[in-house]
């Protein structure tokens, strides 16, 4: 065990060591939290409640879709966050691969972002299926948008599996970095699938090439509010997750050093 991991004296115990003593630790007192992250978490929580109220109660029904439009306020933000997460994964992977110091922090942000992206991509597929069941009468169709989205989801599940293959942290960072740079190329294919092929899925409601926005004011506000809240939620989750990954890496490093020391002792 290396110096940094020696048993801490009672004076040196982490501030939140009460977590191990209390059966129900406070949800806001976590080892990966800081004052800034807690502030962000409170904003996200408040925003999530507001979004739910807007989506389920305050906004009106759509002329064509009726109340089904209420699913859009979470479906579109989940898709946006998934895209964003995979783009962040690609950018931070490139920063690791081509950075001078090959900082593992970039690799951990890439891993954390991909993990959160997979969660949101899965939720995008689920909420989309619920919408499809009401609108199309079926949960699933092998439609270009649905199929390419499912393919993107499976690709990043594969990316996460590759991260867990073993080897050193730098080996993990290199092989997963290359995959992240290739996988991100699927995003334009998914996004433009509704234009490239005949699709059941509707085309973009807000980001139309003509620049026209044909949505009611409160509906548009709720949609954009959802995108902002989910983006902040993504930031908060990645912030915490990459710190958890840093703790896991530090434990791995400590375990490796302890094994090497044990081997040295055996030889001597």
């Amino acid at each position, binding site marked *: 065990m290396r110096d940094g991991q020696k048993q801490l004296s009672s004076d040196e115990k982490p501030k939140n060591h009460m977590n191990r003593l209390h059966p129900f*630790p406070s949800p806001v007192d976590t080892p990966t939290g800081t004052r800034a992250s807690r502030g962000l978490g409170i904003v996200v929580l408040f925003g999530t409640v507001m979004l739910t109220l807007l989506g389920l109660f305050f906004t009106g029904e759509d002329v064509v879709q009726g*109340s089904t439009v209420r699913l859009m306020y979470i479906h579109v933000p989940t898709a946006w966050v998934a895209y964003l997460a995979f783009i962040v994964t690609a950018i931070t992977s490139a920063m690791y691969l081509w950075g001078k110091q090959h900082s593992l922090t970039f690799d951990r942000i890439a891993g954390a972002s991909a993990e959160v992206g997979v969660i949101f991509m899965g939720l995008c597929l689920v909420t989309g299926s619920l919408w499809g069941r009401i609108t199309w009468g079926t949960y699933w169709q092998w439609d270009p948008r649905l199929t390419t989205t499912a393919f993107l989801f499976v690709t990043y599940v594969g990316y996460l599996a590759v991260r867990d293959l073993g080897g050193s942290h730098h080996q993990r960072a290199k092989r997963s970095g290359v995959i992240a740079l290739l996988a991100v190329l699927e995003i334009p294919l998914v996004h433009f699938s509704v234009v490239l092929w005949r699709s059941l899925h509707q085309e973009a409601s807000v980001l139309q090439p003509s620049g026209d926005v044909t949505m009611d004011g409160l509906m548009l506000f709720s949609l954009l509010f959802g995108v902002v809240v989910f983006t902040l939620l993504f930031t908060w989750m990645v912030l915490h997750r990459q710190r958890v990954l840093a*703790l896991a890496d530090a434990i791995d490093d400590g375990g490796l050093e302890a094994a090497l020391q044990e081997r040295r002792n055996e030889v001597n």
Partner: protein
Amino acid sequence: MDHVSFIVGGYVITFVAVGAYVLRMFRQARKFNSAIAESDKPWR
């Protein structure tokens, strides 16, 4: 509101899934925290 179960279900699934992931993440953090020195937590 029509199709209440589908619509409310969509919201519930979304927030429960995110909540479950966050809880799992915090549990891991607490588990790892006891084995790691403060010097390995530059954010603190």
